[in-house]
């Protein structure tokens, strides 16, 4: 089979599964999840085949697998949509396929498949007694659609198709965050997430339109892979004097990313998105959406960095990006310190890790950003699924002991190490990867690469911020692990927690393998001792999707030492601080940090701030101005006036125009038609032959005209 055809086929199975589940299969849970997972398996297999082909193809960057069809005819040209596999999308496809598959499988166990349905459960509320999820089939339908969106986004060869997949995911995240729409918090969260990301998407759409008007195309190859367009874009100034067109477009697209991957200041929706089921959290925060955001700017790296040469001064756009990324990384890390909800911690750590990638793009470290994107996807998915498993265990314990507590609160856990060994070890691996535990974990290599890049090009501010953020990351990761698994159980529930079913643990193990192994693909050559044992495949391969390959950095011990130091330091500090927190004991950080802690705990009061600055004014405006004054007063008054006048005019017209003139004419016409019809209809005898004769005569006349007169 032709490889391009395979690429076309990759996104199809999930959407088919979605349709079939929604239309036919939703009555049978088993059939539904068989459909969903079967389709995901097909996509996964196809993706692996394509990936294998892509890896073995020489010089994929210049000759990507690409095929496109004309879609919208636009004047003389047609807007083409199609699929493309170049190195970047290949690696992205790789981790997307794996994580999606893992999450699908995990969802079976997470939604208690096989347990009887508890009569107390209502659709829209989480099952409280461990019965099967009431809307089981619906869930699988949604995540299938979600997977479809993500795959489309990854495989598309132009910005528009990417945007389509992007919006599909937006919808799905809305549906899935609000999956338990019975909970008010979930409802608010879904609206919040949708609105916030919309803000970004609007700007992204602007950027898209700007790009199309500037270049007349949206295809990656035609824009990102030829210097003429890029240099032209970089040269021409945009509406904003300081920015070139490229910079302007890059900035607009980047705002889309800010919304999608929850960068400051649009980060607020991500923590609330934790209201959804844990697989959803994993889907949104690891595999799909946030990755999509970063994938966008990584994909448009050439455009963003147009007019910037390696080692040169950053363009304004890049500066902005780098600043926001670095700031977000630190900022989110600090918030994560003070959170007790196990999933919120992960959410904030996600934000900060995404900050890393964005900062990496900002300072022009393309490969590093892509690398970290992949590794992060793996270990963050692992961590989320692990946390889900933990929550499951605690819930189970709570059911047994019958005490009512928040199963997400880490203060209610502790000592789960023995209870749930698989979860513990995998979570440990994930955590170490997240905090960049030296040498073995994937996180270390990618993060180290970012730091090294920042250092090598002398972006000190970025370097220091990121290093600090890394320290904090290690710290809160250790804090989380310690609070959850180490020490003694702080509640009865934690005592009675138990390991989850195999459908949940198997994906954990698989992802754990990648969380460790994914890093080895990108070990720099010049690394002491183990450098060059494995070729720096990541750099070679991924940089192929750029025009001029960035040369690999020469080795520099400073960033290495720094990252090792912060990682180990953070871990040790965290372990020391949290290794034994007594039951009901308060957070050890509370006293030293004092009021700062409360600030952090309340996330810098950002939600309150937004509520005060944006939401309430909006309400007020709507209420007083729009409704009372504008609507009731002006518009209605005007309308009433119009109505009254119209009434008078109408009556006048009716009496003096309509009845005498119009009706008279109408009747006359009707009568005339009837009469003429009565006269003319004698022609229509209904006799075939007379019609035939007329036809033949005309044919004869025509022929004789053509033959005799015309020449």
């Amino acid at each position, binding site marked *: 089979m032709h490889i391009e055809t395979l690429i076309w086929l990759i996104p199809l199975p999930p959407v088919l599964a979605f349709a079939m589940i929604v239309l036919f299969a939703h009555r049978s849970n088993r059939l539904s999840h068989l459909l969903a997972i079967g389709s995901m398996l097909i996509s996964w297999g196809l993706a692996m085949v394509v990936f294998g082909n892509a890896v073995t193809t020489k010089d994929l960057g210049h000759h990507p697998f690409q095929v496109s069809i004309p879609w919208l005819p636009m004047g003389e040209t047609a807007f083409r949509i199609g699929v493309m596999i170049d190195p970047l999308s290949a690696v992205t496809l790789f981790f997307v396929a794996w994580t999606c598959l893992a999450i699908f499988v995990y969802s079976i166990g997470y939604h208690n498949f096989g347990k009887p349905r508890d009569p107390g459960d209502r659709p829209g509320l989480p099952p409280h007694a461990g019965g099967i999820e009431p809307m089981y089939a619906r869930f699988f339908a949604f995540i299938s659609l979600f997977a479809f969106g993500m795959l489309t986004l990854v495989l598309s060869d132009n910005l528009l198709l990417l945007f389509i997949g992007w919006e599909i995911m937006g919808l799905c995240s809305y549906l899935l965050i609000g999956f338990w729409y019975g909970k008010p918090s979930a409802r608010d969260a879904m609206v919040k997430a949708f609105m916030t990301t919309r803000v970004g998407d609007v700007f992204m759409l602007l950027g898209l339109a700007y790009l199309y008007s500037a270049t007349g195309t949206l295809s990656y190859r035609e824009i990102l892979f030829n210097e003429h367009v890029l240099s032209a874009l970089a040269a021409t100034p945009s509406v904003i004097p300081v920015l070139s067109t490229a910079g302007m477009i890059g900035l607009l697209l980047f705002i889309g990313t800010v919304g999608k991957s929850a960068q400051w200041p649009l980060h607020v929706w991500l923590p609330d998105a934790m209201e959804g089921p844990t697989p959803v959290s994993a889907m949104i925060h690891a595999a799909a959406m946030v990755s999509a955001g970063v994938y966008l700017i990584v994909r448009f790296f050439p455009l963003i960095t147009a007019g910037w040469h390696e080692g040169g001064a950053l363009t304004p756009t890049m500066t902005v990006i780098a600043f926001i990324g670095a700031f977000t990384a630190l900022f989110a890390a600090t918030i994560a310190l003070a959170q007790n909800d196990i999933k919120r911690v992960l959410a904030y750590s996600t934000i900060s890790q995404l900050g890393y990638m964005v900062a990496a793009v900002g300072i022009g470290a393309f490969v590093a950003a892509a690398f970290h994107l992949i590794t992060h996807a793996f270990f963050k998915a692992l961590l989320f699924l692990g946390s889900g498993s933990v929550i499951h265990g605690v819930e189970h314990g709570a059911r047994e002991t019958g005490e009512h507590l928040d199963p997400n609160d880490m203060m209610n856990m502790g000592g789960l190490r023995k209870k749930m060994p698989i979860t513990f070890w995998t979570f440990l691996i994930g955590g170490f990867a997240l905090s960049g535990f030296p040498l073995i974990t994937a996180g270390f290599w990618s993060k180290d690469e970012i730091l090294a890049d920042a250092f090598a090009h002398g972006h000190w501010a970025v370097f220091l911020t990121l290093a600090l953020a890394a320290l904090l990351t290690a710290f809160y990761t250790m804090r989380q692990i310690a609070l959850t698994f180490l020490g003694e159980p702080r509640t009865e529930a934690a005592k009675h927690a138990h390991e989850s079913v195999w459908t949940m643990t198997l994906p954990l193990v698989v992802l754990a393998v990648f969380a460790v192994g994914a890093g080895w693909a990108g070990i720099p050559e010049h690394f002491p001792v183990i450098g060059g044992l494995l070729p720096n495949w990541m750099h070679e391969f991924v940089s192929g999707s750029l025009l001029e390959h960035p040369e690999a950095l020469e080795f520099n011990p400073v960033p290495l030492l720094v990252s090792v130091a912060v990682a180990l330091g953070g871990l040790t500090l965290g372990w020391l601080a949290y290794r034994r927190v007594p039951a009901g004991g308060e957070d050890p950080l509370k006293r030293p940090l004092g009021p700062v802690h409360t600030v952090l705990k309340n996330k810098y009061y950002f939600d309150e701030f937004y509520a005060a600055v944006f939401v309430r004014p909006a309400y007020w405006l709507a209420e007083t101005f729009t409704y009372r004054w504008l609507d009731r007063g002006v518009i209605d008054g005007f309308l009433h006036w119009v109505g009254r006048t119209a009434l008078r005019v109408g009556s006048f017209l009716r009496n003096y125009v309509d009845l005498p003139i119009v009706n008279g004419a109408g009747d006359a016409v009707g009568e005339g038609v009837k009469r003429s019809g009565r006269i003319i209809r004698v022609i229509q005898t209904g*006799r075939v*032959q*007379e019609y035939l*004769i007329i036809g*033949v*005569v005309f*044919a*004869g*006349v025509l*022929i*004789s005209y053509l*033959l*005799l007169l015309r020449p």
Partner: protein
Amino acid sequence: MTILQIIFLLTAFLTLLAALRVVTSPSMVHAALWLILALAGVAVVFILLNATFLAVVQVAVYIDAIAIMIIIVVMLTRGAVRGQGHTVSKTWWAAALSALVMLTGLLVMLLQAPVRGALPPTLPLDQEAFLERLGQALVDVNQYILPFEVASVLLVAAMVGAIIVAWPLFVRRGEEER
């Protein structure tokens, strides 16, 4: 005047005569018989044109199938033609006129045609081989498979349609409606 020409003129004369009788004879049965004669004449013309295959097909399709069908229908609808006086409708003069117009048009065309005096070239390949080529051309994707398939579909459709239309059952239902 070679033998072929004599044969041709004879056949043409007979065929035209038969055709005239077909369109003029008051009795349908006779018309059908004359039709058969005319068709046979056309078959002979085909043979004169070295299209033996078509001639035989002509006999098989027209005389054996269509003519017999027509005769059967004539038998079935006998009562209708009995005692209805005229064989031609009131507009027969218009018909004749338009036929003449058509004839003149065709003849003028013929006179203008450059090839009218052409003589038959020697057949490039013998009938057997030609028949083989014809058969393969009919099912050749690059040549006539589409017309061929369409014709077969048309035949099937016609068969089904004829059965449905002539089905007494439907008629009875129609009667009840009226």
